[in-house]
């Protein structure tokens, strides 16, 4: 199996305080990797490392390497291009203060796509995939920030898909979404993994169990265990902490 992302010896400190401790693991191509762990365990930090937005946090320092398709991402000159190879869905939905259409067309435009017909088609496809098209197709020109929280979250998913990412990172995407829509999006993710590699950070362990091929359990900045989801959710994962967390008897 081909490795899409290879992380080795990754350490992140915020003002000297560790957030990730010597973490090493690989992400396989076209898998859904579930990332679980209690609050503050470094999950969001890990995603920020991968799309190099950690660089905007002045108090953060990083060691170790992250390779995307075998290339160390810190050596990639076109960081904007790199970020477009990675789709990012943040936990709190952020509709940019632009129209719904412009929200989705933002990244393709930033990358230089101008043709109206291509943009139209792209916007529709992404909104369809994010299960939002039917609700907004008649008002693509209203502000994205005027949508409900759950709709905005799906808008951010559509936006993350708009630049055809190779890796899709979802950070607790279902916080603001109702269960029915969550299920719809989960179905979409299952089909999307044929085209891309998906990192799914989630606080709902059952969501990882439903979707993930493999699952990684993080605790206080340490990677406690990474294995196939079946093993992690079995009665016999290698670490007791994993068992306790997954079964809700943690702490």
């Amino acid at each position, binding site marked *: 199996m081909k490795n899409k992302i290879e992380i080795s010896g990754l350490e992140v400190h915020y003002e000297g305080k560790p957030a990730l401790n010597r973490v090493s693991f690989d992400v396989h191509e076209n898998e859904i990797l579930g990332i679980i762990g209690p609050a503050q365990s470094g999950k969001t930090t890990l995603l920020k490392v991968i799309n190099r*937005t950690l660089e905007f946090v002045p108090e953060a320092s990083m060691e170790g390497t992250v390779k995307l398709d075998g290339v160390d991402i810190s050596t990639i000159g076109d960081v904007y291009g790199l*970020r477009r190879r990675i789709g990012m869905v*943040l936990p709190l939905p952020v509709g*940019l203060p632009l129209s719904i259409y412009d929200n989705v067309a933002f*990244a393709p435009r*930033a*990358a230089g796509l101008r043709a109206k017909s291509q943009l139209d088609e792209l916007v529709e496809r992404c909104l369809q995939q994010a299960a939002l098209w039917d609700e907004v197709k008649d008002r693509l020109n209203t502000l994205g920030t005027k949508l409900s929280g759950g709709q905005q979250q799906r808008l951010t998913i559509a936006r993350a898909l708009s*630049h055809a990412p190779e890796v899709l990172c979802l950070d607790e995407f279902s916080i603001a979404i109702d269960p029915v829509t969550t299920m719809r999006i989960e179905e979409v993710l299952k089909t999307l993994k044929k085209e891309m590699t998906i990192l799914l950070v989630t606080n709902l362990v059952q969501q990882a169990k439903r979707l993930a091929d493999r699952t990684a359990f993080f605790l206080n900045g340490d990677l406690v265990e990474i294995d196939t989801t079946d093993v992690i959710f079995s009665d016999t994962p290698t670490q007791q902490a994993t068992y306790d967390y997954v079964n809700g008897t943690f702490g």
Partner: protein
Amino acid sequence: MNILRKKSKANLPFSETVIELFIRLCGISSIIFVFGIFFFVFREGAGFLFSGLNLTEFLTSVEWQPTSLNNKRYGAFALIVGTFSVTALAMCMAVPFGLGAAIFVSEFCSPKLRETFKIVIELLAAIPSVVWGFIGLTLMNQLIIQVFNAPIGLTMLNGSIMLALMSVPIIVSIAEDALKAVPDSYREAAEALGATRWQVIYRVLLPAAKNGLLAAVLLGAARSIGETMAVLMATGHSVNIPSGPLSWIRTLTATIAAELGEVARGDEHYQVLFIIGILLFTITFVVNLIADLVIKGIRQE
């Protein structure tokens, strides 16, 4: 709603009732003051405004001869043009510079440099306008004479530069606040989409902050229109329809300041100066109204 309010009021402790009363008084008194000032200015000018003054001549004639013995003329057109042209030229300089500086401070500056920059801006805002007038009269005067080979440097250009320097601090600080108020999550979201710093700024930040930026520009313009001392000293102060930046001009405010001390209370000239005051009131009122309407329009969109 009413019931709710009464109920909550009954539950208020005594100290809060007092504080609320005090705050209410502050609010009401500020309204009373504004109306009081307007009433005073209006009363002083009203007599001549309604009988005697030829309003058409006042608004369209360029002949301003209030002290002439046998041919008194009160044409304020040149003064109006003076005020607007010097403000417009000042804004042409202050808006790009002020907004640019605000973007720099809020988006590109290291925290340390930002603190320094803010102190400098505050210092700039604290300089009294008579000092700016003095700089215009001496330094800028010489500079304009030498650079443009002009006979005299006390011109509209000189006044505009002084006004620009005075309104830039206002524009920078309000615009910077507006940009800082844009949530960081917008920046993060746009950056995660692979936007460059400039794309983040002109596609996301400027649209998100446009209300505040507009307010910054309008307040800067209001400062320019109302400014008196510096333009009095730096623009040449002579009644003239300007033909370009190197013409001398006279403004409404400077006319009031220069002539009010010379007139007898209650005579025609005195009253005309108060009518100019009413005119300035009206202008600022209209500017504010436009600002309100524009902002409302943006909100509805």
